[in-house]
Structures are given as C-alpha cells and as structure tokens.
C-alpha cells in the first residue's frame, strides 16, 4: 500500500513542479504532514545532504525521501515516479518537433526559444553571482577561472575540481588563522 502512495505522491511532484530543484520542497513538506514517512527535521537534513551529493537536488531529495519512507525499493520508486511525467512529455514534444519541423509555428517557436534561452541562462548567472559579490575571495577565484578559460575551453570537471581544491585550502587557511 505504501508503494502505491509513494508512486502517486512523487508522480504528482513530477507533474506539478516547474523550475526544478527547490521547487519540489513544498510538495515534500506536504508529504511530511500527511504521511508519517519522515519528520520536518529529517526533511531539512535531506535537503542538506541532497545538495552535497552529485545530481539535481530535486531528484536527490526524492531518492532520500523514498529511502526514509520504504527503504531502497521506495527510493527507486520515488526517483522514477518523479521523472515519469517528464519522460512522457519529452518523448511527445520531441516527436511533434520532428514531425512538424517544416511547420511555420514550430519554426517560429524554435527561433523565439533561442533568445529566451539566452535570457534565462543570463538571469541564472546574475542570480548566482549576486550573493557572492561581497565575498572578495569568491570574486578573485571566479575571475581566475574565467581568465583560465578565455582562450581555450576546458572540461567542466577541470574547473569543478580546481575550485573545490582551492575551497578546501581556503578553509584550512581560515581555521589556522583562528
């Protein structure tokens, strides 16, 4: 019985959460109130863990909530149920785009999506940058990473690892100073 509820609750999250990641948290909060699968404290802890492990936070939290609710089977079920609605939609949209690729409206939509896409990502960049502005070390590291790549592009993992390493060094330095 718990598996049916689990499937249904996470399928609903997959249908109604737009904007990914933290957009799923209100739904998870609702679940913690209705069922006794996990407490509010556990939810907070889940979000914290979900943001330090690889993968999108919205999916990691589903995996974790499933695990708390019904063990490993629950976690597989919650993860897949949450992605199932978008799987259907992605397949349908991809098929339509292919079938009607010569259609005036489909071409107009695709052409309009490009500047919108650029705008969306620029807004993300600005949104992420804003809270870091006062952190002088973050700005120096950012400038260094950008400078490093200005001429030749490198693997994303290269930047992630270098920055993580510098972050650890920075913390060792802070600890020693105190």
């Amino acid at each position, binding site marked *: 019985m718990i598996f049916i509820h689990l499937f249904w609750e996470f399928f609903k999250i997959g249908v109604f959460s737009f904007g990914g990641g933290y957009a799923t948290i209100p739904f998870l909060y609702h679940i913690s109130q209705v069922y006794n699968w996990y407490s509010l404290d556990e939810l907070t802890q889940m979000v914290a863990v979900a943001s*330090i492990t690889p993968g999108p936070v919205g999916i990691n939290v589903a995996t974790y909530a499933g695990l708390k609710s019904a063990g490993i089977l629950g976690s597989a079920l919650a993860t897949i149920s949450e992605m199932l609605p978008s799987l259907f939609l992605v397949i349908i949209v991809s098929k339509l785009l292919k079938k009607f690729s010569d259609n005036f*409206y489909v071409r107009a939509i695709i052409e309009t*999506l490009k500047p919108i896409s*650029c*705008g969306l990502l620029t807004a993300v*960049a600005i949104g*992420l940058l804003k809270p870091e502005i006062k952190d002088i070390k973050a700005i120096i590291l950012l400038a260094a990473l950008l400078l490093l790549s200005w001429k030749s592009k490198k693997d994303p993992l290269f930047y992630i690892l270098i920055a993580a390493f510098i972050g650890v060094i920075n913390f060792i330095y802070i600890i020693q100073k105190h």
Partner: protein
Amino acid sequence: MSLFKLFIIFVKIGAILLGGGYVILPIMTSEFVDKRKLVSHDDVVDYFALAQSLPGIIAANMSMFIGYKLRGKWGAIIAMLGVTFVPFWCIVLLASVLSTLVNNSYVQGALWGVGVSVIALIMLTVREMWQKSKKNAFFYTIFILTLITLLVFKLSPIQTILLFTLIGVGYKRFREGRA
C-alpha cells in the same frame, strides 16, 4: 551509438553533476557538442528552454531530450536511468555517513569552491551561447525583454517562456501576414 555507450556517458554526466542542475548545460555542451559532435550547439540551446517549459527537473529533462535525439524513446529512458545512477547510489549507500559530513568544514570549503566554479561555468556558457547565436533585432529585443521580465518583474521561468513564445510567434505571424 549503442544504448550501453549512451548509458555510460550519462552515468559519467550524473557523477559530475555537482552544485545544482544548471551545470548540466556546460557538461552537455562539452560532452555531446565539443567532444563527440553528436548534437549541434543550436539543439542544446533549444533543449535548455524546452526542458524548462516542461514540468520536472531541468537536468533530467535535458538528458532525456538528448537521449531521445540520439536513440529515440529507449535513448530517453536510458538517459533518465543513466544520469540518476550515481546520485541514486550516493544517497542510498552514503546518506547516513553524509548527514554527519554536511557540517564538516572541509566539505563546506569544497562546496564553496564548487559553487564559484558553477558560476564560472554558467558565465562561459552564456558567452558561448551569445557568440553562436544569429543576432538580429528580433534576437536582441526578446533577449532583453526576457531578462527584464525575470530580474525586474520576477516572473517565473515558465511564465516568461510562455509569454515571450506567444509574443515572438505572434510577431512573426503578423510580419508573415503583411509580406
């Protein structure tokens, strides 16, 4: 490309998906456009907007679009399972250990660095997107209006996408009608 190979590529992508779902865009561009030349840069840009127009998690939606593009519906399913493979086992096997690590200062330090690298990666992607787009008056207008709507009027991405798709298509229809 075999489904197995596709699965392995997405497992790798899932494993380095740190610091939130948005890094999926630079990672996808690096993996499928630059290294393997299987998908065009234009397609990746389209999928990013499409992935945000659909409900669900953006990084998963983008993976499924690319998976479908390369190997049809099985490609989409394989992409979905591949990209969540490492994240899934990380949570299932390490959740109890990790919950004690969250407040560890080394982990916090590394996360601080990862956060900065994510900003750098996204800025580089914006630059590349900008360089590779065909820019005309229509592009600039929609771009600037999108930015203002998101930053000043704080509409959600989905509302913004719907609004400007309607405006853009309406404008093109109007111009077509007159020509």
